[in-house]
C-alpha cells in the first residue's frame, strides 16, 4: 500500500455528513469534542438524521437547537454543571440508551454481529421506553436470568474524532480522556480525525497511536477544534463562554456559534 496523504479541508470533511443516516461524535462531556465540525455544519447548514454521542454536551445541544439532527442517541445529555442549553431544553427526539446498551450496540457493529445480549435486569427502564428492542433467550442459562434484551448493532456512517496530534496517514494520538473514541471508529464505515497538530509521522514524535491508519479515512488539521471545550494539555474549558451559551435563545444559537466559537483555521 503506497503512502496515502489523507488530509482534507475542514469544509470537505464536514460535507461528508450531509444527509447521513447516523453520525457519531467522539470525546466525552467537554473533552475533545469535535466542535469545529459542528461549526462547519452550522455554517453550511449541513443536516443529518441521527447523532450518536456517548455523553451529549455542547455539540448535541447546538445541533438540537439549530435542527441539525432529527434525533440524538445517548445515555447522558447536559453541559455538566451549567445545565442544559437552549437545544436540550427544546423539543427533541432522543433515542435513549444506557451506558451498557450503547456500548454493546457499538461493539456489535464493530464485530459484525447482528446484536449482543444485555441481561434484562440491567435494562428494565430502557425496555419501557424502547419498545423496538426485542427479548432473546440465553440458551445456556436456566430460569429468569436467561432473558436478555437483544441490543442491535449500531453501525455508524461517519465518526468524527478530535485528536491532539495525527499524521497524514491517519495515525492519531488522542490525549486526555479516551472516551469511547476507538469503539466509535471501529463501528464506523468512515472515520474522520480532526487534530490540533498535523505531523508527518506520529511514531517519530514518540506518541503511540490510539487510532491507526487502516481505521482512519480522512485527517483534518483543526487547531482549537474542541473549543470552547478542552483539548488537554493545550487548552482547557472556557466556562464563561459556556455560561453565555446556555443563556442564548434557541433562535440565536446559529449566530452564536458563528460568532462565539473560533472558526476552523
Amino acid at each position, binding site marked *: 500500500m503506497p503512502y496515502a496523504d489523507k488530509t482534507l479541508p475542514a469544509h470537505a470533511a464536514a460535507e461528508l455528513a450531509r444527509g447521513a443516516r447516523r453520525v457519531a461524535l467522539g470525546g*466525552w*462531556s467537554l*473533552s475533545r469534542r469535535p466542535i469545529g465540525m459542528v461549526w462547519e455544519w452550522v455554517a453550511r447548514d449541513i443536516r443529518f438524521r441521527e447523532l450518536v454521542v*456517548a*455523553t451529549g454536551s455542547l455539540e448535541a445541544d447546538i445541533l438540537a437547537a439549530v435542527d441539525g439532527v432529527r434525533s440524538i442517541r445517548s*445515555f*447522558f*445529555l*447536559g453541559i*455538566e*454543571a*451549567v445545565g442544559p442549553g437552549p437545544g*436540550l*431544553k*427544546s*423539543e*427533541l*427526539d*432522543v433515542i*435513549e*440508551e*444506557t*451506558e*451498557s*446498551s450503547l*456500548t*454493546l450496540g*457499538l*461493539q456489535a457493529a464493530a464485530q459484525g454481529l447482528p446484536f449482543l445480549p444485555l441481561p434484562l*435486569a*440491567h*435494562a*428494565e*427502564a*430502557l425496555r*419501557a*421506553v*424502547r419498545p423496538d428492542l426485542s427479548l432473546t433467550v440465553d440458551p445456556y442459562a436456566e430460569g429468569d436470568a436467561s432473558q436478555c434484551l437483544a441490543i442491535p448493532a449500531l453501525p455508524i456512517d461517519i465518526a468524527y474524532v478530535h485528536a491532539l496530534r495525527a499524521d497524514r496517514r491517519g495515525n492519531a494520538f488522542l490525549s*486526555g*480522556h*479516551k*472516551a*469511547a*473514541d*476507538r*469503539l466509535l471508529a471501529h463501528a464506523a464505515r468512515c472515520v474522520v480525525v480532526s487534530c490540533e497538530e498535523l505531523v508527518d509521522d506520529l511514531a517519530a514524535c514518540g506518541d503511540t497511536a490510539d487510532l491507526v491508519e487502516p481505521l482512519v479515512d480522512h485527517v483534518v488539521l483543526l487547531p482549537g477544534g474542541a473549543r470552547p471545550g*478542552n483539548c*488537554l494539555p493545550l487548552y*482547557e*474549558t472556557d*466556562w*464563561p463562554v459556556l*455560561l453565555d451559551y446556555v443563556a442564548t435563545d434557541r433562535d440565536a444559537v446559529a449566530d452564536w456559534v458563528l460568532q462565539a466559537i473560533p472558526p476552523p483555521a
Partner: protein
Amino acid sequence: MNVTTAEQMVWVMAGYLADAEVIQLGLSSPLNQVAALLAHHLADGRGPAIEDPAALTLTRALRMAHFARGELAAQCGATRSFEAPEWIVQMMPRLSGRVRQFVRPLQIDVRGRINTLQVRTRDGGWRRFAGLAGLAELADICQPFLCYLPRQDRRAFVEQVDFIVSDPLAHHAGGQVILVTDLATFVMTREGARLAARHPGVSDQALADATPPAVDLGSNAHTPAIPAEALACLRERVDPLGVRNLEFLSGAERHAAILGLAERERTLTLD
C-alpha cells in the same frame, strides 16, 4: 463553628462511602465528589479507590475537589486511564457489591425508586431519561444504593415516582436505599421507609412538611456532629474552594459561583 448544610450532608455521605472498595465520582455531582474525597482523605488514601469520570481514571491520589479543571485533576497521580467501554462493560460488572456512588435523582419515592432528567419531546410532552449516566448499571451493582437531595421537598421526595428509571431494591431482596437530604437521612427497604437520623436543628414540623406520609418519622436519632478534625480537613484540604456549595445555588448566584470557581482554579498548579 457553624456547620453549613453542605458540610453536614458531605459528612454523612462520606460515612456511607468509606466502606466501599471503589467510589465513582459521577459527572457533575459536586457533593458526591467532595464526600468521596473527604472519605479518601480521612482514611489517608488507604480507603476506597476513586473512579473519576472527568478523565475516567482510577486513583488514590490525595487531591482536592475541583469543578472547572476536573479532567486535569483526575489525571494527577492516577493509576490508570480507562476507555469508556472498558470501564462500562468490563470493570463495572466486576465491581458488584464493592462500588458506591451517591446519585442525585430528580424524584425519589418511598420505595427507593428514582428518576432523573426529563426532556421535552417534539409533541410538546415530557419524557424521563431512562438510562441516564449509568443509573441502570449502578442499581444493579451498588448496595446500599445511595442518593442525595440538596433540597428535600414533596416534589422531589414522593409517595410514588411518575416514571421509574431505577428500582434498586427490585433485584436486592435485603437491600437498602439510603437518602441523605438537607434535613435528614432516610432508609428505604422492601419493608418500608423510615427516618434514620435528622440533622441538627431540624424540627418535627419541617421534617413532616417535606416528607411523604408513608415514611416512618418515629426515630429520635440525630446526625452525629462532624468532628472538628474532619471539618478542618473538609474546609482546608478537600474543598477549600467551596465546590460543595454549587448544588445549593441557582440562577445568578450559581452563575457567579461557577465563574468564581473557574477563575480560582485557573491559578492552581496541577501536576
